[in-house]
């Protein structure tokens, strides 16, 4: 497919030029990408465990190899040598195919990710990118959406309740989060004027898109975590609810493939975020000016690309170490009622501004400043409009006395509230208080 796409791609205007590529250069690049992904996954597992451990004030893996670096290799070996079980009631063909689908689709994405500008490899001037074509970013979305079939079919073919629930959740999750993800990517397409990854990188020469498109960037980062089933959105494999979700009935190598696919997908979405929002392989600002942009040429850009990629991987781990898992309905509400409307609104704004810039003589900068001025004036004017008499409804003086047992169990008073006088105290003060018998329970606050 990749070769096809590359062959069919028309000449890109500002993007990467693959005309000097020969077969062995392609082969070298493809193998290099595979090796890079597999090694990165091993490092990512170690990285995640180590960073989460540091966040939880414990050492993390530190036995095998220097800094415990070989821990994930040992884990992989262990998985390989485990007994490979196939559930008797499983749908055999689909059961075996599902992990393969997941892994293969996750491996496809990096084909269109630019690692750097053109370099010389064995006498050929070729970009550090396997291929590129006018709809490369859509191709990434396509690979991701087919990869989900691995999860969905794995859960279904196990013929078991929890995996099925996990895969149903995954379906709903991917459909809803792919929408907001796609909408946030469309704003980048509008500004960059292209859907090819190398052209998007070259359009960020002066300004990385995450600055003008900050809302889209935030939406993308949120939905990329949802798309990869990571905490706090790991509902398809929620340990506390679904045992292991779609992986419950998988063992040994098949489980390892799902695991591999999950981590490669994390790398994929991080690479997409880097390419589309953080300038791809471009050096960050102060470095990019050194020595007439020396660090933006040759092999240097790989360093910046990897740094940005691992920054996103760190964000993944950071979020995992910080946030709790969402409840399923909260998750769906967040996707459909917050992310998608915001992404859609932002898309309309960006499209309107870009349309003004392209199709009218208006100076967009002055227009935006005028708009900001109008908003500021309206905001200031709003201060002078007298507020409605909402405050009149609460003329109460002093703290409100609440019944701590109104809902059936004792609640502590909120700020501005107070408890009724303790009946026990009253009993102690005045013998045989009249109200003491009416409420048998004493309003004690526990755990205060």
């Amino acid at each position, binding site marked *: 497919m990749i070769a096809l*796409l590359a062959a069919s791609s028309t000449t890109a205007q500002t993007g990467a030029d693959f005309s000097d590529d020969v077969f062995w250069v392609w082969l070298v690049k493809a193998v290099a990408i595979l090796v890079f992904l597999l090694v990165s996954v091993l490092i990512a597992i170690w990285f995640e465990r180590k960073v989460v451990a540091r966040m939880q004030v414990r050492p993390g893996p530190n036995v095998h190899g220097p800094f415990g670096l070989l821990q994930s290799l040992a884990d992989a070996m262990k998985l390989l040598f485990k007994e490979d079980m196939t559930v008797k009631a499983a749908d055999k063909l689909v059961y075996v195919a599902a992990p393969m689908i997941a892994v293969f689709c996750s491996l496809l994405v990096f084909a269109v990710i630019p690692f750097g500008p053109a370099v010389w490899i064995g006498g050929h001037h070729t970009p550090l990118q396997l291929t590129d074509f006018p709809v490369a970013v859509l191709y990434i979305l396509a690979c991701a959406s087919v990869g989900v079939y691995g999860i*969905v079919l794995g859960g279904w073919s196990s013929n078991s309740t929890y995996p099925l629930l996990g895969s*149903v959740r995954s379906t709903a999750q991917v459909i809803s989060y792919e929408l907001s993800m796609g909408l946030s990517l469309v704003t980048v397409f509008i500004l960059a004027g292209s859907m090819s990854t190398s052209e998007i990188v070259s359009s960020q020469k002066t300004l990385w898109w995450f600055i003008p498109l900050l809302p889209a960037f935030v939406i993308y980062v949120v939905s990329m975590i949802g798309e990869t089933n990571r905490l706090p959105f790991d509902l398809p494999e929620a340990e506390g609810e679904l045992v292991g979700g779609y992986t419950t009935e998988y063992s040994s190598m098949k489980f390892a493939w799902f695991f591999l696919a999950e981590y490669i997908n994390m790398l994929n979405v991080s690479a997409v975020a880097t390419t589309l929002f953080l300038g791809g392989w471009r050096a960050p600002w102060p470095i990019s000016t050194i020595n007439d942009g020396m660090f933006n040429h040759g092999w240097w850009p790989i360093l910046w690309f990897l740094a940005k990629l691992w920054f996103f991987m760190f964000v993944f781990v950071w979020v995992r170490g910080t946030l709790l898992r969402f409840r399923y309905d909260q998750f769906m509400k967040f996707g459909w009622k917050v992310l998608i409307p915001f992404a859609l609104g932002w898309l309309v704004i960006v499209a309107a501004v870009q349309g003004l810039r392209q199709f009218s003589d208006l100076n967009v900068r002055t227009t935006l400043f005028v708009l900001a001025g109008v908003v500021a004036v309206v905001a200031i004017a709003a201060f002078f409009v007298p507020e409605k008499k909402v405050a009149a409804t609460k003329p109460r003086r002093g703290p409100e006395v609440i019944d701590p047992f109104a*809902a059936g169990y004792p609640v502590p008073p909120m700020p501005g509230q107070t408890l009724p006088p303790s009946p026990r105290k009253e009993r102690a003060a005045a013998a045989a208080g009249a109200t003491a018998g009416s409420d048998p329970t004493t309003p004690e606050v526990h755990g205060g």
Partner: protein
Amino acid sequence: MSALAAGPVLATLHAGQASTGEAILFWVLAPIMVLAALGLLLARKAVHAALAVILVMICLAFMYVAQDAVFLGVVQVVVYTGAIMMLFLFVLMLVGVDQSDSLVETIRGQRWIGLLAGIGLAVVLAGVVGRATFPPATGLDSANDPSNPEGLARLVFGSYVFAFEAVGALLVTAALGALVLTHRRRLTPRVGQRELADARVKAGAVLTPLPAPGVYARHNAMDVPALGPDGRPLEHSVPRVLRVRGQQADEREYAARIERVLAGEWAGGEGSTALATTTEAVETPGSDENPPPHARPDVGAPVPGAATDKPAQEEQG
């Protein structure tokens, strides 16, 4: 579906423009597509039929890409395979894992009507396709100028913008219609997590999660009831399914041991070896000052505590 895809490819083949690679691709993909399309008709399980459709769609995307319709090929995968077929699968999976198609006709003569309609459609399509005339080919380079998505955008948002907008309006109308038709007004207030918690408190039910089976008991198995703070087995800690099936472990066996302990035999230290080991286990550090559990059965914490502290060293289970 495969026939539809085969049309344009064959057309280019006859025009003598298709490259060898494209021809090879076609002859590899076309049989797969035909087989998959037949699989859709013949598959017993609904999910297998859906998988066959997905396979056809992906092969179709390859075909599109081979013919320089990159955008169409990729969007086909994103929209149809990634979203619409996913929704289909979603429904199919919820219908039932082992569900096969029911072959009972719900409408009388449905099969014959369907066959007739199919033949009719085939005749109409054959008539239209047979009479279609093509303008002289301009070549893909001019169609895809400057790039495939831009050429397509010029057509969709230029020549055919009205049709495009009309389709968009129709889709929105359909979505709203589905929303309105399936909307049910809520008759009772929504019962959420908070309301459920309140109701549970009011009813005086257990507030904490139910005890897991085997916790603090001598066996860490699903069918062994947990021990409560008083050292008595909690029957409801065993999953209801096991209880209904009668697969629960014999509770009396455990209860008898507890009873022996509670009856004060632990203090003596004599008796059988089994009892002696039990007594050893019961004497946890720090429990010496406490009154014997039989004196205050409500506080009898030492029993569960003992089971956790050193259960394994002497007892063979």
